[in-house]
Structure formats: C-alpha cells, structure tokens
C-alpha cells in the first residue's frame, strides 16, 4: 500500500507512551514535593498530616509512570504503531488551536461574541460554507443560548463590551 505524506506517522506510539509517562512522573513528583512541605508524618491532634495522603498518591503516580515508561521503552521498533498520522494531527490542531483561542477570548469579549466568531470561523474555514449560512447559524445559536440560559434558567454567562453596548448586562 502506497503511503501518501498525509498517512505518514507524525508520532509513533512509543514516543507518545514515553511522553505521557514522563508527564505523569513530573506531576507525581510535584505532588510529592508539596506534600513533604505540608508534612507527611503523624500529628498529635489531627492524626496523619495534610501531606500524608497526597504524598503516597504522588509516590504511586511516580512508580506507575516508571512502569509505563519502561513498557513504552521496550516496544520494539517493528511493533511501534502510529500514534497519530500527519493528516490527522493537522485536522486535530486546526480544531484545537481555534478552541484554545476561543477559550481565551471568552474571558475578554464574553461568551456570546466569542461563540459567534468561533462557529462562523469553523463553518466558513473547515466546512466551506457560504458566509451567510455561517453567520446565520452562529447568530441563531447565540440567541438560543441566551434565551435558554439567561431568560429561562436565569444562569448568567460571561459578557463583554458588545453586550454592554446593547445594555444586556
């Protein structure tokens, strides 16, 4: 089977396994570090100190991370499968990056405007819809959410300068 550039492995399973195990180890180490600061021994009135439980949690994380890392390391090259293909990774990133930007925008300009921009962008850029369709869908989504959350269930959502301009705060 011929492999196009899109089917090429961006990352192998082996490197992904090791990277995630390393993340776990680091996390466990941080937990243990702060637990030692809090005290991991026995206290007269309170019994085990605040750091006691998290310390062992961190320790188990580190030990399991080591086991998982070793199991990743012993994957033989010929058995190393593809973790993610280049094409797949591109697709995932084209969604992930706008989503991260969207999350950042929510804090700045409120959830409604950010959502309208996000849905419009997504439909226009990834779905290749005409502008009017993208704008229509995103605007009506925002209106529906406004009605459900703010009007019906009285749950306030984050708003920004645009809503302030229309006096909706």
């Amino acid at each position: 089977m011929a492999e196009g550039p899109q089917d090429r492995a961006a990352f192998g399973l082996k490197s992904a396994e090791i990277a995630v195990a390393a993340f776990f180890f680091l996390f466990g180490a941080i937990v243990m570090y702060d637990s030692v600061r809090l005290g991991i021994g026995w206290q007269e009135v309170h019994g085990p100190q605040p750091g006691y439980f998290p310390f062992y949690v961190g320790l188990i994380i580190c030990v399991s991370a080591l086991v998982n890392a070793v199991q990743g390391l012993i994957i033989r090259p010929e058995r190393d499968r593809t973790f993610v293909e280049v094409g797949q990774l591109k697709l995932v990133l084209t969604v992930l990056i706008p989503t991260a930007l969207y999350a950042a925008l929510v804090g700045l300009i409120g959830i409604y405007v950010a959502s309208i921009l996000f849905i419009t962008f997504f439909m226009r850029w990834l779905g290749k819809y005409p502008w009017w369709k993208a704008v229509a869908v995103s605007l009506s989504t925002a209106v529906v959410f406004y009605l459900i959350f703010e009007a019906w269930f009285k749950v306030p959502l984050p708003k920004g300068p645009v809503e302030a301009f229309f006096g909706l705060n």
Partner: protein
Amino acid sequence: MDEIQSLMHGFGVALTLTNLVLMFTGVILGVIIGVLPGLGGANGVAILLPLTFGMAQSPGGATSAIILLSCIYWGALFGGAITSILFNIPGEPWSVATTFDGYPLAQQGRAGNALTAAFTSSFIGALVAVIVITFLSPIVANFALEFGPPEFFSVYLLTFCAFIGTSKEPPFKTLAAMMLGFALAAVGTDPVTGTLRLTFGSTHLLTGFDFLVAVIGLFGIGEILLTLEEGLAFRGAQAKLNVRVVVETWKELPRYWLTSLRSSAVGCFMGIVPGGATPASFMSYGVARRFSRDGDKFGSGMVEGVVAPETAAHAAGTSALLPMITLGVPGSPTAAVLLGGLMIWGLQPGPLLFVEQKDFVWGLIASMYLGNIAGLIVVLTCVPLFAAILRVPFSVIAPIIMVVCAIGAYTVHNSIFDVWMMVVFGIAGYFFKKLKYPLAPLVLAIVLGDNAESSFRQAMLVSQGDVAIFFSNALVGTMTGLALLLLVWPLLGWVVRRVRGD
C-alpha cells in the same frame, strides 16, 4: 411490604405535571446527547447540571432536578443504540457491542427490527435493575447506617481496587489515571485541617479542581478531537419504524427470554460493583454467543446479538445508581456526576438519605420506572428525527458542541479559569483515550478523593495509626480483603499465564 408502600409514595411525588414534562424533556435531551459525537451521559449531565441550581432551591425542587438529570441519563443510554445500529458508530462506549449485530441487521434492511429489539431490551434491562434497586437499596442503606470511617474507607478501597482488577486497560495505567484523580482532588483545602495543599500560591486553585469541568473536558472535548481523526463521513442506513415492524419484533423477542435474564443479571452485577456498563455489554454479548444455539451466526446480524449487550448495558447503567444513593459511592462516571449534583443541592448522599429524604429517594426510584417508560415511547416514535441529527455535517455540529461544553464548564462556578481547564482536560483526554488510560477511575477519584481521604484519616485517628482497624471486624475485613485480592488480580493472572507457559 414497606418498599411497595414507599414506592407508591414515590409515585405520588414523581407524578406531577411538572415532573412529567421534565421527564420527557430529559429523555429527549438525553437521546440527542447520546446520538451526538462528543456528548455522552456523563458530560451531558455535567453540562446541564448548573441549570438545576436554581430549580433545586424551591421546595421539592431537588426531586424535580434529579428527575430531569436521571432522565437525561436514560435518554443517553437509549440514544447510544441508534447510532450503533444505523451508522455503525457507537455513540457511547457501552454500545460498541451493539454494533456487532445491529449494523449488519441494518444493512440487511432490518434496521427497524434491530432498533425495536435494542430499545425493548434496554427497557427490560433497566426495569430489572430498577426492581433490584427498589428492593435492595433500602436493605443496603439500612445496613450502611452502622458504617463508621473504617467501613467507608474499605468501600472506597473496594471501589477503586475493582477498577484495577476488572479493567481491560493495563493495570499500571489504571493506577496512574486513578491516582492522578486523587491528586487533583487533593488540590485546594485539606478536608480535615483546612490547610491549603498543592495550590502553589495560585488563587485559581484555592477551591481545587471541579470534577464537572474535568468530565466535560475529558469526555467532551477529548471525544471530539478523537472523532475528528476518524474523518467525518457519517453514512447511515435509513431509519423507519412502523407499528408492523415493532409488533413483529416484539413477537420474536420472548424467544430470547433466557438471554435477557442472563444479560440483566450480568448488567446488574457489573453496575453495582463498579465495573460499569461497557464491560457488562461485552461480557453479556460473549456469554450469549457461547450459550445461544445460533452462536456461530453472531456478528452476521442476529437479533439476539442486539438483545444481549443492550439489556446488560442498560441494566448496568441503571444499577450503578444503587451504590450512589445508598453508600454515596457511584458505580459509573455518570452516577458520579449525579452524586455531584446531590452534593451541590445540599443533600448528603449515603445511607442517611433513606431516613432524612424519603420523598427525594423514593421520588427518584419511582421516576426510574416512569422515565424508562417515557424513554421507550420517545425512542420508538422519534427515531427518524434523531437519526436526522447525525446527518447534520460535523463542521456545524462540532463548534456548537464545543460552545455547549464551554458554557457548561463556565456555569459550574462562573469561572473563566474553568473554561481554560476544560481545554486542558480535553487535550489530556485525547491522549489518555489513545493510550488506553481509563477515564472512569480518574473521574471517580476526583469525586471521591476527599471523602476517601477523610475516612482514612478518621479511621487512623480512631486506631491511633494502626492499620489493623481495616480488619477489625468481619465486615470491614472481608471488604478490605476482597479489595486487596482485586488489587493483585492482574498480577495473579500474569503469574498463572507464566506458569502455564503461554
């Protein structure tokens, strides 16, 4: 029969017009959630949980709120079958086994039969589980009233060790994911002394990580990222359900009574023990294939092959609520989210609920009967409508789901920081799912972490640091022993394989 009387009282609580409307609303929302990629029972309920904050304040409102949320759950359980049969896409992990025979049936033009069989057996599985809950939960709750910290800790230990013993994922990955959950739960204020832990001076971390945000990120965003990889062409069979097909299938179903019974038993057992709906559905499919006369034809489109996993999945999904209401220990991520709801509404889950909140508990149990009837009616009549949702292109559905997730994450604490955390959890969920780190123990550990730790520390305080307290009487000793056995179970399996020389 006290239970019957309490149940009748429960029907009185649940059968109001408001609650019936909420039931149908919940089921319809749940089916939509179950059909959509990236939204499932756990995160669907998590997203809609904040909507009930206001509702639960009014008198009797907590019962309405739990009816709404549990009906979303039933709906999601039903909805998973639709996508599995028509599109060969399991909307939920527990419907994977349904695709084995459901999709071939649909390809042969018998989608209607497969759907009817799936819905009906889901209903029967749930019904059996609700009957089990009705009669077993008062006994368990009564029994658990005597529990002290050591007993509770041993229940928690059993729950978590069961994940390691029964999980299909590598044991050390299960362990790592679970402990990650415990560590995230420890962030914030120490439940016993009030000391700040693992916050590193950040004000955002003072209140710790909310598991609802984790659920929305891990299951929602992570799932969408995974779905993207698969490409986005949903090509599905036509869905038509008319009365003739339904009646025809119903005539056929009694033949599989033994399979139904067996699958219900497997499902109830797996749901109460925290194994969950997914392994239950696979297990009961396997058992049905072994015992059926047409076992070798399984996979080519046998109605029996749809009946078995659907019955078990729904029975397990339902009975997962039993340990949740009686002990405060949820058997599945969705049950964990419901448990979180109870705590937010100011109800303390556990055995006392049966004494102090009779209306709530029996209203909930009665609503399980009614909700599943509502569910069956909705799915049998509205299948084409729900199937149409899947024909909406992904580039329209995906951003809307993302926005829904963001709103859900925000409304938990009205915090923008949670929206960012949702994205982080989403990325983590993508990696964890691809590398087979199980998410259920992670979520359950975030929910139960503080309680598990408190009961451990209280028990230690009672015994002055002597771990023998976890073996101090027959009950706690059995549970601890069983937990330790489950913990070393993968190791035993490995040793046995080595000795046999496989």
